Structure formats: structure tokens, C-alpha cells
């Protein structure tokens, strides 16, 4: 496309530009949109869920549950070890190999 303007002319074409104005009664339309949004429960739920405070609380609860589960598993393991050690020791004591050849004097 060929034009008769210079690029400088085009770049300067916004000089003395006036502000564009929206259609009248913008406030009424904004108010209607606000009321429409507030009446939709899914938007309210979404807005609540996406709040930073909710996300931080959710992450903290998640970490707490994880910590609790890991801790309880460790304790369980410790208890098993405590019970298992004497049994194992006893087992070792009475461990008799049936294939062991006992040399009789």
C-alpha cells in the first residue's frame, strides 16, 4: 500500500487528540454488572477460593496434615522396632540351622 505521508507525519498524527468519551449512563451499566456478578454464587465461590488468604490457609493445612501423617508413621515405625528387637534377638538366640552338621565327639 502506498501513501503520501511521511512516517514522522503519521507518528505525530495523535497531536491535539481529544479524549474519547464512553456512552452515557456508564454508572448504571456498571451497577447492573456488579449486581449480576454478585447474584451468581459460582463467581462468589471462585472469588473466595482464589483469594490469597484462602490459598495460604489451604497450603498451611496441607503441610500440617502431611507433617502429622509423617510423624505418626515414624512413631509407628519406632514402636514396631521397639517390639521387634527383643523378638529378633530371641530368634537369633534360638536360631538353629537344621542343616548344620553337628560333629559328635
Amino acid at each position, binding site marked *: *500500500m502506498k501513501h503520501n505521508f511521511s512516517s514522522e*507525519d503519521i*507518528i505525530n498524527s495523535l497531536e491535539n*487528540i481529544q479524549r474519547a468519551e464512553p456512552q452515557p449512563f456508564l454508572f448504571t451499566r456498571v451497577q447492573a454488572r*456488579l449486581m449480576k456478578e454478585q447474584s451468581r454464587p459460582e463467581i462468589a465461590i471462585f*472469588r473466595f477460593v482464589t483469594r490469597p488468604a484462602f490459598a495460604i490457609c489451604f497450603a498451611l493445612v496441607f503441610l500440617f496434615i502431611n507433617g502429622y501423617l509423617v510423624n505418626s508413621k515414624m512413631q509407628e515405625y519406632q514402636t514396631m522396632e521397639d517390639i521387634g528387637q527383643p523378638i529378633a534377638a530371641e530368634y537369633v538366640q534360638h536360631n538353629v540351622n537344621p542343616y548344620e552338621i553337628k560333629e559328635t565327639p
Partner: protein
Amino acid sequence: MNEIELISRLKSGDAIAFRELVETRQSLVFNTVIGFLQNTEDAEDVTQDVFVKIFESITQFKGESALSTWVYRVAVTTALEFLRRKKRKKRFGFLSPILGENNELTLELPDFHHPGVTLDNREKSAILFKAIRQLPENQQTAFVLNKVEGLSYQEVAEVMKTSLSAVESLLHRAKTNLKDLLKNFYNLE
């Protein structure tokens, strides 16, 4: 109502204060948004979105800048989000038929004539707006705020949360890019 009183009343959800905010800042928001979107209907829609966002997030306004600066920020962010959404839709356009939802051709944007441009600059500004669409977001923001909305470099820097020298550099690069675009696409000198 002074600005401090207006902000505190807005934070308490006062409808009269919100009405005052909309009525005093509507042309500021609409003119900024239309500079990015280059479409009157979309700009009307996004302007409403901006005020809804302002109403909902005014409690997060800490008063570190002027209220108008914050309003400009919300307007710029919302307009850029709208453009990104539109571009994403366009990128996946091959999945939908060539006809849009309302059976309108959606391939090429028409020339945009800003309502505030003088008659003798109408044609030239339409070419310029087409070239502005090709600029990177930060250059586009600096250029629109400075040239369309008429903000000073300092005010642009405050809206963009950057330094004065960064704005100068952005505007310089925007002009250079625009000149290149105009040369390449329109064979201009």
C-alpha cells in the same frame, strides 16, 4: 469530596462515592482502554470490567500512589489481559470455523478511527493505530499513555512502576519500531 475521603468511603462500600469515582474517571478509563483495544464496543465492555474490578479490589489500594494512577494501572492491566485473551483465541482459531460465533468474519481487524482525532489526521492516525498493535506490550503501554492519554513521562513512569529514564527509552524504541513498521508495511519514507 477530597481524594482521601473518597478512598475511605470507597473502602467502606459507599455507593455515592463509587458513583463519583465512575463519573469523574470514566473518560480517563475509556480513553486509555480504547487506545489499546481500538474497538469502541470492546472498550465499552472493558471499561465496565475496570470499574467492577476497582469496586471489588479497592480495599487492596494502599494509597502509595494517587488514586488516578492506580485506576490507570487497573485499566492498562485489564486492557492487556483482554488483548492476550483475544490473541489466544485467534491462535487456536484453526480449531473453529472461519466464521465467528455471530457468523462474522474474524480474520482482519478493520481500520480504527479514534473519536478524538481531528478530521485531517483521521487517515494518518488509522495507519498509526494499526502499527501500534504490532508493538511489544511495554512499548505499547508507554506510547498509548503518553500519546493517546496525554500523560507526562513522569506520570507514565508512575503508572508503569518504572523509572523516568526507562520510560524515555521505551518511547524512543516505540518510535523507532513504529518507523520501521511504517516503512516495511506502507513503503513510507
